[in-house]
């Protein structure tokens, strides 16, 4: 028996080693292909295959990036200021929508009367794509922080409500019946059974909302703003600075990915109980 155990352990270690070697190998292939891509791009620009004015080389883009950290030219803000401006708008709208949207969706899913009253209003807002709100809100409220935050609010609000609603509707009826048998009040069941069981769905909604709010923000800034990453890329296009545009695009992508990673971290902490089933 002991021998078998040892043999098994050795096999396991061999298998794990092979896995690790495979992981390294594919990581290497990935890095190599990325490097090849960048190299090809650089060569294409240097040999004149691509126009340097519309597609600058990766090295030039990197230089612009370093430059942009301290230099406010040409759009009047450094990269840090632009990131900060964008984050301020998107996060204020985003959190306002979370605070209002999630409880609203949960209530709509739990109490029939709340559903009957709020549903028609919600169904009117729902199909309007977030971008279509931009002109209306800008005309109503101008181009300030509040107007843009309101646009982000609409964007975030819809998926939050839908997912909270669906999530609490999917609460296991058995759990509700058990709570009833033990004499829980309706509100107590809502609070202690309904809400926790809706949480995974709610987080899925928040994840969707985060992505779409970030992209709507870029659109809002491109159409009406005086700072922010969307403004920066739009301005870069107007003055024909492709390097500024590409730096802006990559920064938008990077910040978006960072926000998504943060959310995933929070989700893991919040839904710890779910993974230990």
């Amino acid at each position, binding site marked *: 028996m002991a021998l078998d155990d040892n043999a098994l352990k050795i096999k396991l270690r061999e298998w794990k080693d092979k896995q690790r070697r495979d992981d390294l190998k594919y990581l290497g292939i990935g890095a190599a292909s990325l490097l090849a891509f960048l190299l090809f791009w650089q060569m294409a620009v240097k040999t004149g295959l691509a126009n340097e004015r519309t597609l600058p080389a990766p090295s030039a883009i990197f230089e612009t990036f370093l430059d942009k950290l301290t230099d406010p030219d040409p759009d009047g803000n450094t990269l840090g200021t632009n990131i900060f401006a964008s984050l301020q708008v998107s996060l204020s709208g985003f959190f306002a929508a979370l605070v209002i949207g999630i409880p609203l969706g949960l209530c709509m899913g739990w109490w*029939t009367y709340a559903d*009957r009253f709020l549903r028609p209003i919600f169904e009117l807002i729902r199909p*309007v794509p977030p971008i279509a709100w931009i002109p209306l809100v800008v005309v109503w409220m101008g181009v300030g922080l509040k107007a843009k935050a309101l646009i982000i609010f609409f964007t975030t609000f819809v998926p939050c409500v839908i997912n909270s609603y669906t999530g609490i509707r999917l609460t296991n009826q058995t759990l509700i019946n058990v709570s009833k048998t033990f004499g829980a009040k309706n509100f107590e069941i809502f609070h202690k059974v309904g809400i926790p069981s809706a949480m995974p769905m709610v987080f899925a909604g928040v994840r969707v909302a985060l992505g779409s709010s970030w992209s709507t923000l870029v659109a809002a800034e491109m159409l009406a703003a005086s700072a922010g990453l969307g403004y920066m890329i739009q301005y870069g296009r107007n003055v024909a600075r492709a390097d500024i545009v590409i730096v802006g695009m990559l920064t938008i992508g990077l910040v978006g990915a960072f926000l998504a990673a943060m959310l995933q971290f929070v989700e893991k902490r919040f839904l710890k109980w779910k993974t230990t089933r």
Partner: protein
Amino acid sequence: MMNLEEKKKSGLELFLYWGLPILAILLVVGGWLWFAISNPRLMPNPLQVYERLIRTFTRPVAKVNLFGHAFASLGRVLMALVFAWVIGIVLGILIGWSRVCKAVIGTIFEIIRPIPPIAWIPIVIMWFGIEEFPKVLLVFIGTFVPLVINTAAGIGLVDKINIDVGKIFGGNRFQILAQIVIPTALPSIFAGIRTSVSSGWTTVLAAEMIAAQHGLGALVTRGWQGSDMALVMVAVITIAIIGAFLAFSLNKLEKWVCPWTK
């Protein structure tokens, strides 16, 4: 949950059940009227919107009536979708199925992925101008990304046991892919298609709002810049109706294509 449907409803309950939605709609209409009357420059009243709607047919904007603008937008979305479906699904299968492909294509894709399609607008305009092609390309970018992500994720969901069974029965790699992996991934692929349509519909509006002659997004910009809020409202309502219709028909289609998802 309060199972109102199961209980016999009393008079008051019945009154609330039907009265509340009616009250909600009245509140919305009343709110609109109040806002329109107190700020006639910011918000047209429903009657003005209706008149403006009629006027898009009698005096077409940019020589095209409302249907023409709607079809211009839909046509762009459709053209981009055809390409995105083919290329996106194939690429997603490659990334999900082969580790080499994942390492080579996936790495580059991961850099492009988090950039929202709208952020591509300036660079695409710099590269290709404001003709028809750049707009379709933008919609393609917007629809292509969710398809690749969903397809690759769906392929990753396949149970290892099913693949092993396929191997034991002597299936080659292609047969396993076609008969076991893809059917399992179909619901996920379809979710990608659904996302791609709604994202395409949003992206085409953004692209048209920034530079276009025809299309619903162009109507919005035209009304906005000409302080013609009634036209903006007409365009926004049309956009919402078409968006809702697209979502509805895709739901029906999904039930028909993969009835095993709930």
